């Protein structure tokens, strides 16, 4: 028992770290949903392309021999920024090609289109990188390889980067949506699309912007993922995206703070489940196998009792 408890701090930190990654990705899902009541299933692949973009930037820096000479912070910022730009462009393109033509169609149709885009992008990435580099599984040049040991806990530097970035993005997004004119326009479109149009807001442009910002978030998350795990392949988005989406729902879809809260909690539950389910159930439920089930079970329980999620508001239909 003592031994089990001794790893608790590390487990919590591990959970928090992965939780922040879920949180950043969840922000993208929740923002698009908040404005358009549409779940962009392709977000996970935009995240993946962000990871590849980050990888390419780091490879370029390494080839130009800048990786060793530039301060690590500069490399990091360059990587994340370029990934955000690339992913935002992809997000914008996906909206124009796969969603805009379907505006007005029944809800399910763009959803299926999104799933199709997701699969397409996965194999598209595979084809591109197999052609460009001979393999779609790539190792990313490493930066920030150190770790800090605080007492019983080891925190890798990259993990701290993700946490800091997550907090910056959350507050940045909340500021953007609430304190800027464009943000106000987005909130207007989210609240009542036809009336917003009548008020002179260019709805098309706002919707494009939503996907651009969402894409940028996904791209940043992807770049951070590439830096943290130093490994990219076209399938990294799939499971992570599904969990982040779940986290967004868990925290209250449409609510930015909820996305972050949901992400963090999901990460922690997963880590706890992975470490303790085994010992707690006398090895009947071996932790690592059941950690996903454990995390999703909690999700189901929360939704049963609070369908709008932890921080979500129950919307009443106005007759």
């Amino acid at each position, binding site marked *: 028992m003592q031994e089990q408890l001794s790893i608790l701090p590390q487990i919590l930190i591990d959970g928090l*770290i992965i939780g922040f990654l879920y949180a950043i990705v969840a922000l993208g899902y929740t923002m698009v949903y908040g404005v358009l009541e549409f779940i962009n299933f392709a977000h996970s692949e935009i995240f993946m392309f962000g990871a590849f973009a980050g990888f390419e930037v780091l490879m370029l820096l390494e080839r130009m021999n800048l990786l060793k000479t530039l301060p690590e912070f500069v490399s990091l910022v360059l990587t994340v920024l370029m990934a955000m730009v690339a992913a935002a462009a992809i997000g914008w393109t996906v909206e124009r090609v796969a969603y805009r033509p379907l505006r007005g169609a029944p809800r399910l149709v763009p959803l299926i289109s999104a799933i199709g885009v997701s699969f397409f992008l996965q194999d598209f990435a595979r084809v591109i990188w197999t052609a460009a580099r001979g393999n779609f599984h790539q190792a990313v040049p490493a930066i920030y*390889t150190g770790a800090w040991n605080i007492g019983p806990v080891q925190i890798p530097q990259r993990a701290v980067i993700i946490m800091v970035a997550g907090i910056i993005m959350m507050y940045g997004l909340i500021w953007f949506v609430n304190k800027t004119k464009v943000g106000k326009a987005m909130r207007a479109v989210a609240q009542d699309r036809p009336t917003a149009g009548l008020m002179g807001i260019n709805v098309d442009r706002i919707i494009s912007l939503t996907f651009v910002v969402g894409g940028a978030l996904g791209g940043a998350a992807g770049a951070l993922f590439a830096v943290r795990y*130093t*490994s990219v392949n076209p399938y990294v988005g799939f499971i992570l995206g599904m969990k982040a989406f779940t986290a967004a729902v868990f925290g209250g879809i449409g609510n930015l703070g909820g996305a972050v809260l949901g992400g963090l909690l999901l990460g922690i539950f997963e880590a706890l489940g992975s470490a303790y389910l085994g010992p707690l159930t006398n*090895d009947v439920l*071996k932790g*690592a*196998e059941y950690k996903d089930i454990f995390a999703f079970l909690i999700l189901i329980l929360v939704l049963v009792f609070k369908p709008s999620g932890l921080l979500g508001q129950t919307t009443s239909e106005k007759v």
Partner: protein
Amino acid sequence: MDEGSSKSFGGDWLSMKKLLAALMTLSLLVAVAGCGGAKTGSGTVKLKIASVTPLSGGQSTLGSAIANGVKLAIEDRKADLEKVGVALEALPQDDLAEPTNAPTIGTRLVGDKEVIGVVGTLNSGVAKTLAPALKDANLVMVSPANTAVALTESGYAHYNRIVARDDYQGPAAARAVLNTIKAKSVMVLHDKTEYGQGLATEFVKEAKKIGLTVVNGDGEGINPKDTDFSAVVTKLLNTKAEALFYGGIYDTAALIFKQADERGFKGSFVGADGLDAQDIVPNSGGAANRVYYTSVADNVYGSKEGSEFVKRYEAAFKSKPATYAVYGYDSANVIIDAVISYAKANPGKTPSREEIMKAVRATKGFKGLAGEVTFNDKGDNPSAKVYLFQIQNNQYPGASLGEIKQ
């Protein structure tokens, strides 16, 4: 009057529609009926060897290697086949490593009458659903990679494999961990598949017999599509195990190994033939040179035929072959040999699937690039041996550490 004229003008257009539909269906039927069947009219017997492996997805490095091995084998034997009046074609199928895709592929292959044999699958889980689909048609399967024991214990007359089974490979890995790698405690993980879990179970059984401590009970499953394994690594460090054994495929293995190494795990990383792909080196990071894996072929590339194979492969496919390419090559050649001996004895005739199936099962002492192949009455290859490799100097394939005896 009007009704009369509209009737004759448009015709009874419902029946026109029906007529059109009937004509189209008829022509489709004729086309389909005409498509199937090997044509012996022109004298050359046209046949196909299908390969069923993942050509897309995380395991496509191994799957493509096998499919390419089949293509290369057919290409290399073209002259021999022409001499006996047979034209062979490769028919690669993508199973995405998902067992649920097997029935559809099976139906398709059974329906294509030119398909005379199947090289596949890579994943034991897929083979488990593909074998029943091909059984009634007596379509022979030669697997270059399936290691799950159950596949040759199900009484299939059409299923064969050239590689050793998990009840040989798993225990061999356990013995290697204790005797060669000299680790006294090991953490066992697997990917919950037919292959990985089966392997881990056999590993644990043997470990208990030889006194190798397994720190996590009977082994633990993880989700192979996951990317973050911090919690598992934390447990690993906490148990102070000296080695980590992973029953599964290279893509997830590399991630787990890398993360364990980054967190300061100094022990060895062990796996089986699922790790035998070039990706294992760059993607394992600092863990690479402590990776050991078992495989069914000894250092193939060291032999003269092996290095020539590599040259031909690189010329044809512009990439280096994973070791599985050789298994695919050998599996295809087993089927090709059966086809050639039939064609020699029966010139101009198309072999039935049953005859090829029996001929393949009767294979004795076939000398392949990866080793000798003889099929026993279950479809296993008793000549299959298990060898241990270690990645050294970030080079793939790993250095051979010799055979692990039964």
